[in-house]
């Protein structure tokens, strides 16, 4: 394998070669560190690189393979963690000047689970400020750039995770998703991201944005890689009050069973309104592909889907509640846009917050009703491809309409995966959502579609000017 092939290999391919002793975790880690050194000065994915630790963990993994102690499919797999996950002994900034020097004393549960599974930690990946702000020029941490076009945003807030995967700097990553922060970067960077069911993956040790909307989850370059990471992450955690006790299914075994007869619902109303024509064309083509695979595709109606922007009331009100003390005492340490957004959250009334939660209950009931007959729902992940920095950095730009927020409101599992490219070469993305705790079906549908297409196999070309 060439160094580039190593850096873009799948988790399954790496594990297979490790077990045959055809490749060593040390070789892989060194290849990635070399690539990071070469590319990240342009991409700004990493806030903190833990090269020495990564090499030590790679050597430990190599020794485990030599002993034949290699039951975990994540043994020797290099990953990065969004810098909003606490990491013991390693600076965790949340992309904020407030936490620029914070060194946690314990790992977030998700970090611990991946490390216990044998993953190699390459470092911490940049996040938008507290998973919501935007890094304007002059911010302490420069923004990650989209490997498909450096003048375009990689999406956020898990911006470093999305860009690092697209550029072949890590083999897996963690993101967080309050209104699309896993799926948005996945869509804009042409990779795969899974927002699991609310309560399925622990949030303990992750800095909150909005308690009732926050989700944690995996990001990778293929659906199968996402499933490997998810399998290690899922499960009850008493340290997260919202953590579910539902048993964890096998998400790898059913992946290749195909989708013949799968009932796929298309909620066109609202989610397809005003979308970019190229996004619309790619989405319709993906429906053709799903039908060709044997799925039964039909339109469905979610009567209350228009109420989904109410997520903003919940997000901002809860965000204000979390940040209120620091906003009053250390306001200068916030970026202007994040501070103003959080201040807006302080202006909602208690009644408005409760009504938004009630709307959410209606929306969730309507979505679950649609999922009584349909097994998954599909729509474009984002209404348009990644915007340019010039457009995104307009402080007066309205908050973009979201096709992802509805699934945070409902707490349903939702997967974003590549489904095409714009004429300008930017990735387009398909979103597949499913029933609570039925990530297995969502992943199976995504895997079947992915294997019938080649979008996931494309790599950014001419990465560096």
């Amino acid at each position, binding site marked *: 394998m060439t160094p580039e092939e190593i850096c873009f290999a799948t988790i399954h391919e790496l594990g297979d070669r490790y077990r045959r002793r055809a490749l060593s975790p040390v070789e892989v880690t060194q290849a990635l560190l070399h690539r990071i050194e070469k590319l990240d000065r342009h991409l700004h994915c990493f806030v903190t690189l833990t090269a020495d630790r990564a090499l030590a963990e790679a050597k430990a993994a190599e020794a485990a393979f030599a002993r034949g102690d290699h039951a975990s499919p994540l043994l020797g797999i290099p990953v990065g963690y969004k810098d909003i996950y606490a990491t013991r002994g390693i600076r965790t900034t949340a992309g904020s000047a407030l936490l620029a020097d914070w060194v946690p004393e314990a790992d977030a549960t998700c970090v611990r689970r991946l490390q216990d599974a044998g993953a190699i930690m390459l470092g911490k990946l940049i996040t938008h400020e507290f998973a919501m702000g935007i890094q304007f020029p002059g911010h302490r941490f420069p923004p990650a750039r989209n490997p498909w076009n450096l003048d375009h945003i990689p999406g956020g807030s898990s911006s470093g995770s999305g860009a690092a995967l697209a550029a072949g700097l890590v083999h897996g990553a963690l993101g967080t998703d309050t209104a699309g922060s896993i799926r948005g970067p996945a869509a804009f960077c042409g990779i795969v991201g899974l927002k699991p069911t609310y309560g399925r993956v622990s949030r303990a040790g992750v800095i909150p944005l909005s308690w009732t909307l926050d989700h944690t989850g995996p990001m990778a370059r293929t659906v199968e890689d996402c499933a490997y990471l998810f399998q290690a992450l899922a499960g009850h955690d008493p340290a997260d009050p919202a953590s*579910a006790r539902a048993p964890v299914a096998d998400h790898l075994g059913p992946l290749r069973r195909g989708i013949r007869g799968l009932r796929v619902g298309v909620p066109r109303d609202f989610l397809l309104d005003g979308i970019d024509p190229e996004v619309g064309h790619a989405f319709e083509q993906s429906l053709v592909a799903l039908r060709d695979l044997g799925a039964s595709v039909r339109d469905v109606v979610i009567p209350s889907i228009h109420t989904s922007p109410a997520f903003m009331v919940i997000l901002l009100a809860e965000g204000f509640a979390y940040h209120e003390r620091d906003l009053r005492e250390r306001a200068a340490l916030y970026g202007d846009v994040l501070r103003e957004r959080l201040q807006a959250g302080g202006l909602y009334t208690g009644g408005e917050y409760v009504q938004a939660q009630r709307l959410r209950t209606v929306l969730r009931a309507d979505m679950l009703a649609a999922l009584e007959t349909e097994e998954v729902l599909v729509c474009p992940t984002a209404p348009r491809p990644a915007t340019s920095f010039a457009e995104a950095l307009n402080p007066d730009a309205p908050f973009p309409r979201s096709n992802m927020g509805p699934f945070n409101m409902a707490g349903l599992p939702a997967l974003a995966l590549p489904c095409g490219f714009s004429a300008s070469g930017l990735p387009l993305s398909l979103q597949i959502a499913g029933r609570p705790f039925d990530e297995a079906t969502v992943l199976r549908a995504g895997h079947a579609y992915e294997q019938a297409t080649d979008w996931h196999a494309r790599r950014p070309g001419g990465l560096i000017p």
Partner: protein
Amino acid sequence: MRASGLEIAEGRLEMVRGLLEYGLLAVHAMDSRAATAVEPAVIFDADASRTGSHA
């Protein structure tokens, strides 16, 4: 202008207003008397099955 005890620059009020309105459109359109659902929390039952039963 001060809001929630915090200063918001005059030039930024329009952005804040737009953000507030984006979220509130559906809330203000809601007839709370017609909405029968009252449970605001999204907490799935710990023993929920695949069929989507929830608390």
